[in-house]
């Protein structure tokens, strides 16, 4: 979609941007990209819908296992990660604002902050949740090895927990890659007040990652 005209000019790249020829103007292209991406986001929500469905079904069928399972999680790490992701969402939104106002340096700072929060999220997840839990046998399905289970369906809880959080973590990683790309291109002045489609779209993706976590957090950590 982003075709750049080859003619050399002193203007920054974003100001030289021309929309693809099958669009009537840049605004229409921007609108189309956003609609397309929102549709993509619906598919992401429904992808997680499968996990939510498994959660919902098994939680209702085996409430004891779910109660025991959420008791084995520490809400403080979940809450901490929620705050981290909310902050990252905020910095992402601010970076879009900065691009819209052509404050390139501030935008880059905010993107770096977003990346930092994303990495922090993954670190907390891995170091304080996955590794300690996995090592004492709190694992999904066949790999389950935790000897003190009281409910017979506890392995299922861990299956849902790991599937949900791992697929979410994969999205965090993909989001970080997208943000890194945007950051790189920001340094080349690709984006500015009249052209920032990719920043906006990356932002939408990152907010979706946050959105999913907003639901995963209470479902996994708080509801008992």
């Amino acid at each position: 979609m982003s075709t750049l005209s080859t003619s050399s000019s002193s203007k920054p790249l974003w100001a030289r941007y021309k929309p693809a020829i099958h669009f009537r103007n840049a605004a229409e292209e921007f609108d189309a990209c956003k609609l397309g991406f929102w549709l993509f986001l619906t598919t992401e929500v429904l992808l997680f819908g499968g996990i939510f469905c498994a959660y919902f079904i098994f939680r209702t069928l085996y409430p004891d296992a779910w109660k025991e399972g959420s008791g084995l999680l520490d809400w403080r790490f979940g809450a901490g990660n929620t705050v981290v992701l909310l902050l990252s969402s905020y910095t992402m939104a601010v970076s879009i604002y900065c691009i819209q106002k052509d404050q390139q340096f501030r935008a880059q700072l905010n993107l770096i902050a977003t990346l930092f929060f994303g990495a922090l999220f993954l670190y907390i997840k891995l170091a304080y949740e996955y590794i300690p839990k996995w090592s004492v046998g709190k694992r999904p399905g066949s790999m389950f090895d935790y000897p003190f289970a009281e409910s017979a369906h506890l392995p299922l809880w861990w299956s849902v927990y790991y599937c949900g959080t791992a697929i979410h973590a994969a999205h965090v990683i993909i989001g970080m890659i997208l943000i890194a790309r945007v950051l790189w291109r920001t340094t080349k002045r690709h984006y500015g007040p009249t052209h920032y489609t990719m920043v906006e779209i990356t932002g939408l993706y990152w907010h979706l990652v946050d959105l999913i976590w907003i639901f995963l957090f209470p479902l996994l950590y708080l509801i008992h």
Partner: protein
Amino acid sequence: MSHSAQHADAHDHGESHSHAIVGPGLLRTVLAFLLFFTVLTVAFAQIEVYVEHAVGIRLPWWVNVIGAMSIATVKSVLVMAYFMQLRYDNPINTLAMLFCFFALGLFLMFTGLDLFSRGMVYDFKSGPVIAGGTGAGVPGANNQPLTQAAKVRFKERLAENNTREWLICAAKVEDAANAAAHSKDAGAAEAAAVLAAQAHHMMDLHAVMVHPPEAGAQAVVVRDLEAQANTLRTKGNAAAAELVAAAARSVQGIDMAQARASYSVEAMFDRLAAVAHGGHHEDHGAASSSGNASRARTGVTGVTGHAAPHANESGHGHGSEATP
């Protein structure tokens, strides 16, 4: 075709929606609200647990669910409306998202319609034959539920001599800690803390499962305790140091052959389970501590509800007819 021309115009004009600029002030306000709601939802869950512990009032389960989910919904609406700018955007995007939630709702609703109404005609159709699964064909499960297989594996580990000696020592240290805690001697409190920490460390799942003890547990424990005693001594707490050293001597004095005979695997398992469950009090705070008390929710499941906790002893309850 005049009306179609209007249509085309309408979506040409629609572009102006997209270029909304949401300022940092508004973003900060939204962030503040989001953080506030996060605190609120955590507090909500904590208060419920607290109320149950302190006052003994148990709120119905749906209060918790509806509370947490409503707050999550409000938060997600905030994120979508402001961070994702749906409020200023072309309404078609909102419509797409609404359709998606609608489809998700259908998915959950109709799947639930089947899975939650299995026992309508015959009660026995609702629950699984063996709670936790048959384990058939699962490596290492020996045709048992996975939780059961994990217990069996762990008990086999407990039966090993190294582990057993390690835990006998741990029990001794714990006894010493308890004795010190109940004593009014000088330095008893400090000694009790040191000993309890040592015992807890030794009985932790990590110590037994992740770093399985090597031979000569007795000597290792004695050395550790003496080191602790020395530390206390250098801090000038000689009375406490003496108590810890006494504990070390009592560990050294254990007759392992005799102790092994009298200390059963079941007893060790129960003691470790108590530590593991108690451990959550410290590790995970008050919120989750009650999570391990297996309070069956009022009659939600047929077979699973009561067969689960004691599956190992009772031979899987209802399942005995259909499975060997």
